[in-house]
């Protein structure tokens, strides 16, 4: 059952105060410095202890039985705090993938451990060239006896080195999608970090050299049902990354407005100048609209999954670009100091730029949105869709 309005407000305020102490910009910088671990194990333990990883998991699997709209609050706050943790990988991506599994045994065995943070999961959705379209996967599978064999590699996999469980999407020679829950330490699985401009996130290339998996590791029957699952996980990812971006942009706005109120030039606070004031107002418009859009999108994830792709595309189309532009304006309003490594303005911009494209570019989502919502296009529309599939 979803949280009440009061409970959500309480969750938000708890999250904000916990993260203010555990994930301040100084702590984020310490964790992400060259010789640091890249994420904060202490923060992750705290997140688990607070029960946030259990929020979207069903009560029969040891979860809190709340919804995505409740989890969205945590994601927003993690974005605000630039938090470095495998939360997106494990509590969002892996959890939603296993929830969508047709195989009840997988859910029974994996969800309680994911909810309790005893197991860290991640999902390998993208090809090595970054394509998020299941058909473009650079991981292949073939049937072999009772099970299947995986070869190839996936790119841009979050927190793969921490994960005990990697949910992999792959295609066979006929183009059928399979989604497989692999143990990271299965023979033939190799993870290699691909450092990102946004130092608060950790992405990996995961390669598969003849990795053998039993059929019981398939989340669904290969083919359309599995492609649908991959699509849904990607939709959840888009909404989650957008919540993160909205949170980061919100904090960037607050810090920028604070600077514009205090920084004096020409004997007056720069926020009094309309050129600066209007940049700040544009940031506020983007943040307010992104908050509304991500809130509505997260509510939609608690509804009919058939609508998730459309909701995700709307969200991607607006939120990523709007939050990026807000953080870019935030950097500009700070002037010279905003261009320094020492100042935090770039941390927000880098975080939301990655959020914007992690699960497909806004432009790709717009084209998919057009395919989905402009149905009455006649023959040319139909041909158009098939041409996309061929490439």
């Amino acid at each position: 059952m979803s949280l009440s309005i009061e409970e959500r407000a309480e969750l938000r305020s708890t999250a904000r105060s916990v993260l203010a102490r555990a994930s301040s910009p100084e702590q984020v910088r310490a964790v992400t410095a060259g010789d640091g671990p890249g994420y904060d194990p202490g923060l992750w333990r705290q997140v688990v202890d607070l029960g946030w990883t259990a929020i979207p998991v069903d009560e029969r699997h040891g979860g809190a039985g709340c919804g995505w709209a409740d989890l969205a609050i945590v994601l927003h706050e993690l974005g605000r705090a630039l938090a470095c943790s495998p939360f997106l990988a494990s509590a969002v991506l892996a959890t939603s993938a296993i929830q969508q599994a047709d195989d009840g045994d997988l859910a029974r065995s994996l969800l309680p451990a994911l909810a309790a943070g005893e197991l860290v999961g991640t999902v390998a959705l993208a090809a090595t060239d970054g394509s998020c379209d299941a058909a473009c996967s650079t991981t292949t599978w073939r049937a072999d006896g009772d099970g299947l064999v995986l070869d190839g590699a996936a790119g841009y996999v979050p927190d793969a080195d921490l994960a005990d469980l990697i949910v992999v999407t792959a295609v066979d020679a006929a183009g059928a999608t399979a989604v497989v829950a692999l143990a990271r330490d299965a023979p033939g699985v190799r993870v290699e970090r691909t450092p990102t401009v946004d130092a608060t996130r950790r992405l990996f290339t995961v390669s598969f050299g003849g990795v053998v998996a039993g059929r019981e590791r398939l989340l669904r029957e290969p083919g359309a049902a599995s492609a649908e699952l991959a699509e849904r996980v990607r939709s959840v990812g888009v909404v989650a990354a957008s919540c993160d971006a909205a949170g980061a942009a919100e904090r960037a706005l607050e810090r920028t407005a604070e600077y514009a109120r205090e920084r004096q030039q020409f004997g007056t606070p720069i926020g009094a100048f309309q050129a600066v004031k209007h940049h700040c107002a544009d940031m506020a418009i983007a943040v307010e609209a992104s908050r509304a859009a991500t809130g509505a999108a997260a509510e939609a994830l608690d509804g009919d999954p058939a609508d998730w792709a459309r909701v995700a595309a709307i969200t991607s189309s607006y939120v990523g670009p709007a939050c990026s532009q807000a953080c870019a304006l935030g950097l500009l309003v700070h002037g010279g100091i905003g261009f320094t490594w020492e100042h935090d303005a770039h941390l927000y911009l880098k975080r939301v730029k990655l959020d914007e494209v992690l699960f497909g570019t806004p432009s790709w989502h717009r084209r998919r949105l057009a395919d989905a919502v402009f149905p009455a296009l006649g023959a040319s529309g139909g041909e158009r869709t098939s041409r996309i599939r061929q490439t």
Partner: protein
Amino acid sequence: MFQPGGQLDDLRQGVRDWCASRVPEDWRDRQRGVTHAELVEFLRWWGGELRDAGLLAPHWPREWGGGFSIAEQVAIAEELARGDVPRNALFHVATFNVAPTLVHHATPEQLDRFLPGIRRGEVWCQGFSEPDAGSDLASLQTRAVRDGDQYVVTGQKVWTSWAREADWCMLLARTDPSASKHKGISCIIVDMRSPGIEVRPIKQVWGPADFNEVFFDEVVVPADHLVGDENNGWRVAQGTLAAERAVAILEMAERLRVNGIEAAVADVAAWRLEDGRPALDDDAVREQLAESYAQVHVLRHLLNSMIDGIIRGDDVGGTSSIIKVFYSEILLDLMRRLTDLQGVRGQLDAPVLACAGWETGFWMNDYLHAFGWLIGGGTNEIQRNVIGERLLGLPR
């Protein structure tokens, strides 16, 4: 007559059925290219239909024939938009701007005097802007000089919508020239049939002339037409109108969502690019239309979150400025995109449809019309100042 307090679904269905039975299917065709007089006649008829159904002013207090909850107002606005009804342009100022201001600031006697008239179909205009007081409204110079139990008003107003048709004007005038500029203004109700008033129409860029200049030459107004305290007119005019504005924009936003973007896509589907390919085969075109589609949906989420705020009793003043800017700019953007896509064909002149939403299918003209939304009701530049100052605490 629709009544508040029933089942929301019944209200929805009722309004839907009512739209289907009362709105002539060919009204858009019949209203294209009409004269100003024909337009006004049509809008009076449509206002009467809404009034008879109890839908003219659902946001009013119950004792004045309203009493619909915010959720009911939203349902009504949505159904009217989905029903693709004419826009209630002629009575909008009276029902959405004047009446809520009166309810907040007028005496019970004044309410008894003026609200029944609005319900009967009297037209109001707002005398706010002046030639030298646009964005800097508080520098207005029209004077109202107290003389016993009356005021004598002299000055000039501009951009006054429907002033020629108006029975009454809610006027802002300076009553204390010695006070600082925000403090010497009063809000006064002026009978537009008074001697000394001259109204001259102003034709707008998109063709129609629903707004005007209004000249006041020693116009005598009874002193009991003062709304609120003397010299407190600035606050009266600022009013707490956020809720009304939100629902009014909601209807426009919903028109854009359920009719506008759909009509746009259907239109573009019939267009060919200059190389002969169907326009909708082009990725750039598809992306642009999808981006607008997404923006229109985000606008709706923004309105929903503001309405939730109103129901909770939050201060949504800054948010209403955000919504005004967001709506007007995505509207202009969509109209510009459609105009650009249409190429030279879009530049052919055509009869104007003045009483629909802001998307009539004559895209070049809709594009021109859309500028009105960025300028009217406080320019978007002023709205950005409001957002910066009220929401973000930036200095003036």
